[in-house]
């Protein structure tokens, strides 16, 4: 493992400033169990809430009879669609999802009613006692049928959520070499560990409500909740409850409106908390997708044109499907130059579980297709897969197939070369021999099952590289707000940026220490008592909220410099921060920054906006994205070809990070993101049969453990991006994107060594039967 030295970025940075890796301010509370997650928050006189969900993928609600539930001691409220006082639906882009199903249920798990009772067990019994009569309808479970119009609309908005074409350059261009394939990506769950939970506390008189909630975007939640409650936004106050991971699954509304409705109805605090089984039904997932792709290239492997048709199954409600689709189609070329393209993208509605944001957001599905294609192209041209990628590698100034120029630092070739330069694992199959001379069975595919014979194991190597857009797209102004206050030499920062584990609470004080030269930086509560910070998603908070904190601190620093200049007969324009001092370099004048602020209060709020982007026109042309980041991955796997078992041995990666503001946090994002990419490659998939989920629990939905996740060797490509406020790019999503195709390519490589042919493996996750049958 390559750990970047603490001062690698900034040379002599003092500990706690940018470029160093101070520990998390919430770290001690988290290791001691005293950090308050949203599921740990209670209030005096608190009731519990629970949700009744549809057992059918598609059905008409004939009647709901709550009388038996009311017979149970301790039941305090039963609410249905009739009890929603405001807007009946919510949604991130279009408001097409009902708070409670009214006449029709459209997926297994759709909320139909909610109850409040004295305790969770009484809630459970009340839910069981609610009698709902359904008229079961024929579900739409085939995305192609949604496109073809073969099924009556399952929603007033129709069965197609978005259809978008991209036509770039000469659509009739052809290449000497043509490769094509059809690729499938399964439905992945974010599987954060901290289940959905919230506490709603009503204001006296029911005029407002305070919601403690684990979310990714407090202000967007507030807007949607207030609309459904029929309250003005300022009557709904959100406070970030401790967030146990997010990965996209907390961008949509889950239990927020239900909890507030129950609390307002009963004029008492109400808690809701999902079980794991309910969580699988209660949040959106990564879109399953089918992608056909054809590459045209010159005989030496230079890409001439791509053609693709992408179909994303959005499930029952739109969520962010249209934005996920746009990411996939606009990044279909990957991190490679491509002058001509014809891409046809569909996001459709079915009676499957709703899909939306998950780490990588559309780029993941596209990458599995284009990276598999790059390997096919390399084989067809008889070129090394690394050389082929470098030959086509995008550079600053190249354009997307939408016509948008890539203006950011774009070290694609460097990422690939640096990854290739990282050492391969030094241990053979099965690890270093054990004292008995045999292999370490825990390092063989199958592990503790002791099923594999070491002599039968084949090692393969595979490659992946990817591009990810940072921030929101298509003309959306996802600005961020921050406030910086200095009083008595202590800095206090306030923002609404959701801390979900990524470490913005560590980074924000680093920014303030660097800009202001003051070490004592504290954080105010994260809530809606300040402007929006946008969502903790799209790898955007270091850039956006980092930009806002930086701007607020710079505004305060300007005030400090004016004060210091007038007190000491200096020119404010000549002052600088050097460590913890304010200095005038020309004269050598210097004063400790804390002393300089003594007795003074400075308080500034700033918004950071990225430059505007555009929507796509009917030909898919435009500049929809804000910025881009790149990464390369190399996977080494050991495969048992007879049993279909895989052991990932090592992942190497070089990632374009711009500038590592907190190197240890960057490594944490890289390793954690790769683990989720590994999960999609060989383990994780939500299985639905006829619209019914079959594995909504951690026994059957397999997550990578300590034994599944290999060592990661990483290099950070640090070329500060002049377009980024701190030179730093977002680092959260890229690790997840191309680690998946790299692992699958490594399995293919191993299987090719067995019989000279191998297996196509055009579907993720790769299952044992895909390998051995």
């Amino acid at each position, binding site marked *: *493992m390559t750990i970047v030295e603490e001062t690698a970025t900034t040379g002599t940075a003092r500990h706690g400033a940018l470029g160093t*890796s101070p*520990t998390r301010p*919430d*770290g*001690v509370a*988290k*290791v*001691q*169990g*005293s*950090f*308050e*997650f949203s*599921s*740990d928050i209670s209030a005096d006189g608190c009731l519990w809430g629970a949700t009744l969900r549809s057992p059918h993928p598609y059905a008409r609600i004939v009647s709901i009879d709550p009388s038996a539930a009311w017979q149970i001691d*301790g039941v305090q409220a039963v609410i249905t669609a009739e009890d929603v006082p405001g807007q009946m639906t919510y949604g991130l882009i279009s408001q097409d999802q009902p708070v409670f199903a009214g006449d029709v249920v459209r997926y297994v798990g759709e909320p139909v009613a909610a109850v409040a009772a004295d*305790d969770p*067990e*009484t809630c459970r019994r009340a839910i069981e006692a609610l009698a709902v009569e359904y008229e079961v309808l024929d579900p739409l479970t085939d995305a192609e049928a949604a496109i073809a119009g073969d099924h009556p609309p399952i929603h007033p908005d129709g069965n197609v959520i978005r259809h978008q074409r991209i036509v770039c350059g000469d659509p009739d261009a052809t290449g000497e070499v043509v490769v094509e394939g059809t690729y499938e990506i399964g439905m992945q769950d*974010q*599987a*954060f*560990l*901290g*289940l959905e939970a919230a506490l709603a506390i009503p204001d006296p008189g029911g005029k407002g409500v305070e919601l403690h909630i684990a979310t990714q975007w407090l202000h967007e939640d507030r807007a949607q909740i207030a609309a459904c409650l029929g309250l003005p936004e300022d009557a709904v106050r959100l406070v970030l409850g401790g*967030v*146990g*991971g997010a*990965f996209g699954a907390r961008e949509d509304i889950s239990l927020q409106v239900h909890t507030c409705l129950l609390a307002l109805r009963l004029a008492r605090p109400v808690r809701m908390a999902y*079980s*794991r089984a309910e969580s699988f039904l209660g949040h959106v997932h990564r879109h399953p997708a089918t992608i056909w792709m054809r590459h045209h290239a010159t005989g030496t492997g230079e890409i001439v044109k791509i053609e693709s048709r992408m179909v994303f199954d959005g499930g029952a409600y739109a969520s962010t499907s249209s934005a996920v689709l746009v990411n996939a189609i606009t990044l279909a070329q990957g991190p490679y130059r491509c002058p001509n393209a014809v891409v046809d993208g569909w996001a459709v509605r079915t009676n499957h579980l709703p899909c939306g944001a998950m780490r990588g957001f559309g780029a993941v599905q596209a990458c599995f297709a284009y990276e598999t294609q790059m390997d096919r192209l390399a084989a067809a041209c008889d070129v090394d897969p690394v050389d082929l990628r470098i030959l086509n590698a995008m550079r600053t100034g190249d354009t997307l197939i939408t016509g948008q120029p890539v203006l950011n630092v774009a070290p694609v070739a460097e990422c690939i070369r640096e990854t290739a330069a990282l050492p391969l694992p030094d241990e053979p199959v099965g*690890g270093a021999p054990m004292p008995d001379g045999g292999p*370490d069975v*825990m*390092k063989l595919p199958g592990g*503790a099952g002791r099923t594999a014979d070491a002599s039968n194991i084949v090692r393969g190597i595979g490659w992946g590289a990817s591009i990810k857009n940072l921030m929101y797209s298509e003309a959306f102004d996802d600005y961020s707000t921050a406030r910086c206050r200095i009083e008595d030499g202590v800095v206090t920062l306030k923002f609404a940026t959701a801390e979900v*584990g*990524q470490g913005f609470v560590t980074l924000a004080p680093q920014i303030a220490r660097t800009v202001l030269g003051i070490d004592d930086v504290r954080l105010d509560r994260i809530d809606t008592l300040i402007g929006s910070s946008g969502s903790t998603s799209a790898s955007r908070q270091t850039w956006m909220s980092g930009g806002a904190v930086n701007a607020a601190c710079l505004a305060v620093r300007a005030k400090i410099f004016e004060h210091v200049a007038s007190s000491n007969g200096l020119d404010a324009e000549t002052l600088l921060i050097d460590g913890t001092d304010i200095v005038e370099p020309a004269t050598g004048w210097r004063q400790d920054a804390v002393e300089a602020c003594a007795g003074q209060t400075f308080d500034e709020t700033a918004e950071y906006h990225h430059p505007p982007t555009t929507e796509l026109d009917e030909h898919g042309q435009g500049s929809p994205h804000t910025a881009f980041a790149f990464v390369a991955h190399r996977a080494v796997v050991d495969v048992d070809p007879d049993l279909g078992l895989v052991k990932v041995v090592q992942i190497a990666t070089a990632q374009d990070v711009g500038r590592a503001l907190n190197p*240890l*946090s960057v*490594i*944490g994002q*890289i*390793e*954690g*993101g*790769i*683990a*989720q990419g590994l999960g999609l490659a060989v383990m994780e998939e939500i299985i639905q049969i006829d619209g019914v989920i079959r594995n909504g*629990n*951690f*026994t059957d939905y397999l*997550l*990578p*453990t*300590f*034994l599944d*996740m290999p060592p*990661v060797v990483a290099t950070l490509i640090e070329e500060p991006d002049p377009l980024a406020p701190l030179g730093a790019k977002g680092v959260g999503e890229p690790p997840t994107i191309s680690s998946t195709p790299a692992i699958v390519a490594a399995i293919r490589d191993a299987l090719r060594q067995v019989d000279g042919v191998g297996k196509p493996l055009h579907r993720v996750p790769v299952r044992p039967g895909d390998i051995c049958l």
Partner: protein
Amino acid sequence: MSEAEIYRLHVNGERRDVTDSWVGESLLDVLRDRLGLVGAKGACEQGECGSCSVIVDDELVCSCLVMAASAVGQRIVTVEGIAAPGTPSDVQQAFVDAGAVQCGFCTPGLIMAVHDLLDRTPAPTDTEIREELAGNVCRCTGYGRIIDAVQRVAVARTERAS
């Protein structure tokens, strides 16, 4: 509710009366909802993720799978009993220092599992660490920094012992 039970648990060196519990209630729910010890976390309710790990009579268990009433007379240690507030144990401090904590939801369970591992195996190999901790799922970190934290503690304890 089912019949209210009154029994006494021995948690973190203290005797704690459990009232108003129902007889089949899990140790996890009793710790969290009856005794106010919310350090142990529930994340799967079926013993797959380890977030609820506590130590009962020197044995690491998933408290979601243990009936609270069956733990009467046994010594229960939760994450709150590892060290006094504000003075983390060596394992806890190593997690903070090594970057082994992100969202932190799995962390209390891992703290219990790592203390248990290092008490039994002071100098574990990489494979031993991975195998022993494989019952604790972390979704944020990819495990690399957690392994680093465990190794840091093992080295520090060995150096201290010599």
